[in-house]
């Protein structure tokens, strides 16, 4: 009786999860369809498929600039946020220190904060400092939100890290830097890698912070929004789909690297 009930519950859970996953990807699929249909306006079922709008998007100079901005911002955000978050995660999870609990809570606050309001608050702050917003201020805005996320991602890895290993290395006479390079970093690599991937992808797809803090510079999500509000062209879904596919490719590639890193770590552990 119990097992029959359980099997049925499990079936229902699987069915529900499948349904929700399909619903999540449905609008992304709709966008992909719209970008691939011929004609200025979208109508379903699609009569003629064409890559016309993909071609136009690919060749557009305006869009090249957007992509450059988005990539540049995301790359800088990735490097900086990993640096910040690596030490932040050690403070969050590794060292027992007096202010740790307060630090943990402070770190969560930017995540528990509506992003559009954060963007507007930063705009005010930059203005008060006399800084006119450009893509550089957008980098700062992204960092305020992304560093806490990446810190959490790395902190999860740090929690599973045994500090005894570091102590053993230093007892054996290793310098701090040597210990960091040969003990701490190799163990934390998978977490750092995931953090970097998160940083890049979250910056790449961020819309509310870029909207208010990038000034006259535009990023892909910001440009898409401006066209959605006024002046739809099929380039909107086409560029949206390209951007989504880029993120998917990065996630797949990044996941593969993480898998390899973990396997290498496991092999090494076995050798020892």
């Amino acid at each position, binding site marked *: 009786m119990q097992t029959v009930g359980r099997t049925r519950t*499990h079936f229902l*859970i699987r069915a*529900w*999860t499948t349904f929700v*996953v399909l619903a*999540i*990807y*449905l*609008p992304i699929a*709709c966008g992909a369809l719209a970008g691939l249909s011929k004609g200025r306006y979208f109508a*379903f*079922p699609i009569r003629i498929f064409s890559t016309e709008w993909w071609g136009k998007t690919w060749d557009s100079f305006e869009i090249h600039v957007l992509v450059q901005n988005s990539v540049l911002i995301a790359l800088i955000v990735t490097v900086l946020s990993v640096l*910040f*978050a690596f*030490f*932040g995660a*050690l*403070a969050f*999870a590794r*060292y*027992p*220190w*007096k*202010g740790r*609990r307060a630090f943990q809570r*402070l*770190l*969560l*606050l*930017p995540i*528990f*904060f*509506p*992003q*559009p*309001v*954060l963007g*507007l*608050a*930063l*705009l*005010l*702050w930059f203005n008060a400092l006399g800084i006119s917003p450009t893509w550089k201020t957008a980098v*700062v805005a992204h960092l*305020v939100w992304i560093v806490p996320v990446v810190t959490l991602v790395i902190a999860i890895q740090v*929690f599973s890290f045994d500090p005894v290993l570091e102590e053993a290395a230093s007892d054996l006479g290793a310098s701090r830097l040597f210990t960091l390079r040969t003990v701490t970093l190799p163990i934390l690599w998978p977490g750092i890698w995931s953090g970097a991937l998160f940083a890049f992808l979250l910056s*790449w*797809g*961020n*819309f*509310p912070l870029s909207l208010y803090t990038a000034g006259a510079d535009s990023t892909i*999500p910001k440009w*898409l929004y401006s066209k*959605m509000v006024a002046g739809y062209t099929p380039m*909107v*879904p086409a560029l*949206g789909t390209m951007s*989504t596919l880029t993120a*998917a490719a990065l*996630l797949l590639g990044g996941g593969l690297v993480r898998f390899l890193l973990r396997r290498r770590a496991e092999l090494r552990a076995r050798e020892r």
Partner: protein
Amino acid sequence: MADNSLSAPAPKLSPGLRASLPVLVLLVAGFLAPLVTVAAYAFATPKSFDVFRSFTLQNFAAIFDTNNTVWTSFVWALALAFACVAILLVVCYPIAFGLNKVFGKWSGLVSVLFVFPLFVSENVRLYGWVLFFIKNGVLDGALKWLGFPGGPDLLYTPGITLFGMVYVYLPFMLFPMTLGIAMIPRDLVDAASDLGAGRFMIWREVELPLAMPGILIGALLTFVLAAGAVAEAKILGGQSVITITQDIEVAFTYAQNWPMGSALALILVLIVSGLALSAMARLDLDKILGKR
């Protein structure tokens, strides 16, 4: 190593504090300082840029004036956020349970499927729903093609705004909840079952209380984010609902009334951070994140 911070009376900073410094500087300069600026602007002369030079309560007086209808935006934002949380609790619980107990080796893949949309900006995803629901869109077109009179007119209503919020904030509920359910020890459930507890009783008396920290974080996170949502109401809702963030945005942009926008933002921030801080004070983050 652990008692370094206690035994050393030297002025040297503890390793934890030293490691936290870069992030602390970033958060003070990039998060706390902007909030202080907002607070300062909220007390500046209306429609001026006299921040730190004037002090007045006129902005708040205008907001609480009985002729002002801005309170409807607050009510909409909070009501939508509340409804969004309630729906997501029901939608996500089975999935979070499944990720822990049912999907087995597939749960990694399922998690990735739920994480990925976070990397696609919300306006792109919401616009996909517009293409789905619009006249001659995917739903309408498909129904007509099948011989039905056409799809229902759902777009540009408060209901679809709520739908968009549920859609966008789903991962923010799902993952904390999954972490929460992972904190339920298997043997405790087995023990309750051996002692004769029914499935509903186990769920109510054992599973739910143990998973509560994660569920609470998820509910709080979605509430806070949904209370500040604006893209859903604009793109899907067609401004049939004006949320408070949109009022704030209008004050900052078209109206050029930064003190008024700041006063509205300050009230929203107080509501949101009051909730966040009071709930966070009861949570042990080490336990939730460290449990692996």
